[in-house]
């Protein structure tokens, strides 16, 4: 395993200012905090050279998970191992060598490139930071090489991001991640902001680069048909929890968790008239998570046990891992 994520928990304090924390109740002043649990005990293994995708609807915690794995957020609990070495508790200084091995590509190529830096400068910056001893000529060669790899003319180094189209900017974001020669790339919705024909270009590029450099991807997306196309393994998240973890073929041919089933039936398919499974109600607030299974408020198979007891991921036949009492009891 290249990366192992174990029971990762990430919470955010959204109480606001110091004064907002005080409440007046029963004649006394009490201090209370409002906590959002964005990632709630997630465990995923990411094998080397593979693509593991995390899907879910907005607010399910998939981006927070990606950022916590990268240690852009410190986790509240749980562990992250990189090549069997624990990295979630390292100081920033100790973490620095790992940063060259794990890189991130963000969603919005308009916001993630500094508009005042030329492409050359954007691409040289990570090399200067991580390998300050590298000779000037070598840096220049490496930048030219990555630009070539992502399909941007190396002569464009003096251009600025505003001169590029959305697809070209995303290529530069990918190139920037590649300059330090990483093994592991976390891509947070890398194609969500792009048009269909450009999405195809970027997905093809990512698949080619994976083959060429033996890259491992953690791919975050809400677009299920894209996920089906590029992933080896898929993790489905709902309200910070993992519902189902399976190979792409297993998941898309026979989803087991009721939420996965509903999610997959909602994918618009070319030419087929919608016949999707309707979910009742809305996603509950992550501030006060429902007790028991987080999905029970919207699940048509929910029973008494689902309201009390939190289901754990357990293996079912076919090799998928599902967190559902109904599946475990054999009634779904």
């Amino acid at each position, binding site marked *: 395993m290249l990366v192992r994520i174990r029971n990762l928990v990430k919470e955010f304090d959204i109480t606001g200012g110091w004064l907002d924390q005080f409440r007046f109740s029963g004649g006394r002043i009490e201090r209370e905090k409002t906590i959002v649990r964005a990632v709630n005990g997630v465990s995923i293994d990411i094998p080397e050279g593979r693509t593991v995708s995390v899907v879910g*609807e*907005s607010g399910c915690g998939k981006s927070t998970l990606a950022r916590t794995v990268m240690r852009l957020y410190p986790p509240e609990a749980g562990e992250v191992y990189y090549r069997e070495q624990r990295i979630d508790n390292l100081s920033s200084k100790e973490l620095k060598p790992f940063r060259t091995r794990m890189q991130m590509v963000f969603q919005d190529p308009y916001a993630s490139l500094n508009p005042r830096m030329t492409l050359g400068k954007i691409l040289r910056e990570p090399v200067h930071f991580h390998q300050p001893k590298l000779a000037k000529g070598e840096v220049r060669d490496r930048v030219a090489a990555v630009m070539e790899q992502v399909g941007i003319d190396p002569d464009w180094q003096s251009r600025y991001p505003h001169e590029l*189209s959305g*697809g*070209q900017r995303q290529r530069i974001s990918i190139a920037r991640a590649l300059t330090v020669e990483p093994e592991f790339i976390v891509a947070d919705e890398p194609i969500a902001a792009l*048009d*269909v*024909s*450009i*999405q*195809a*270009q970027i*997905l*093809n590029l990512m*698949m080619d680069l994976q083959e060429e450099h033996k890259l491992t991807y953690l791919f975050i997306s*809400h677009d*299920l*048909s*894209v996920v*089906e*196309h*590029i992933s080896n393994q898929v993790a489905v998240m709902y309200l910070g929890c993992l519902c189902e973890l399976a190979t*792409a*073929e297993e998941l898309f041919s026979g989803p087991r968790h009721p939420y996965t089933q*509903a*999610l997959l*039936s*909602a*994918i*618009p*398919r*070319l*030419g*087929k*008239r*919608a016949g*999707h499974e*309707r*979910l009742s109600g*809305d*996603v509950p607030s992550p501030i006060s998570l429902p007790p028991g299974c987080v999905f029970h408020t919207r699940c048509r198979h929910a029973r008494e046990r689902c309201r009390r007891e939190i289901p754990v991921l357990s293996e079912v036949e076919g090799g998928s891992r599902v967190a559902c009492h109904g599946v475990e009891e054999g009634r779904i």
Partner: protein
Amino acid sequence: MEKLLAINKLSVDFTLRESTLRAVNKVSLSLDRGERLGIVGESGAGKSVLGFSIINLISKPGRIAEGSVIFQGEEISAYSYEQMRRVRGDRISMIFQDPMMTLNPVLTIGEQMRESLKAHMEVSTAQANEICLEKLRKVYIPSPEKRLEQYPHEFSGGMRQRIIIAISLLTNPAMIIADEPTTALDVTIQAEIMELLLELCETEQMGLILITHDLAVVSQVTQRIAVMYAGTIVELGRTEDIITHPQHPYTIGLLGALPQRAGSSGRLNQIPGVMPGLARIPRGCPFKNRCSLAAEICATKPHLRKSSSGSEAACHMVGTEQSTAA
């Protein structure tokens, strides 16, 4: 079938300091009563501008440069501002992309619904409330009496879009123009909203123009599709024909770029390059610089003509051997 809408050679220009850009270039379309048409294209194709121009929502420096829009036998493109105001939101309603931006955050849902109703009809507040409740029930808003007194922030994204749809239904319009109505929503919510729109169009015999970039969504809801590229319609025809036998190289490329069309883990079909900006649309066929079939003849502008599959395509190469090879 009774003709509801006819757009004839409509062009929309945006006049800038140095140049004039043509966002919509001589587009002709028609819609029958109760028919559902999809306008598909990538960003910058001019699909939204086309949708806006039908009810003359083009603001300066844009203007309708030529052509006409005939709705229920009347040339509405020649209407004055006041005449047009009476058509908009009455006989033709429009639904926009972002449900948070289109609702006023400081007014209750009831106030906003009554306001748009009273702009078109002489009704008392009690009557208006009745109509509002009826429409809210139609879009499956639970306990509508209570909801009428609430503010937009008390609703989820999907609920807000339902309310927008309820508002658009208030005056029983003959046609709805929906501009990317589900782009800001999650897939499960998107499926619900699309199902609702489809059901309403069928029961109320409403015409629908659905503007979207999502071919899969459009293929589920509409009967006909118009594919736009750089301000022109490149292919127009029945939904099944276009999905199963696309003719224009751009439509073929667009469908091939969808992951669900490609086999698992194969490469996706990619269209090289990007759509040209409005100032850089090539002469002749606008797609020729990205097209693998481009030949000398493509220097002259192709017009929509019937192809063997039944759809109309604006391509010189359609019907020739090369295009079947592609």
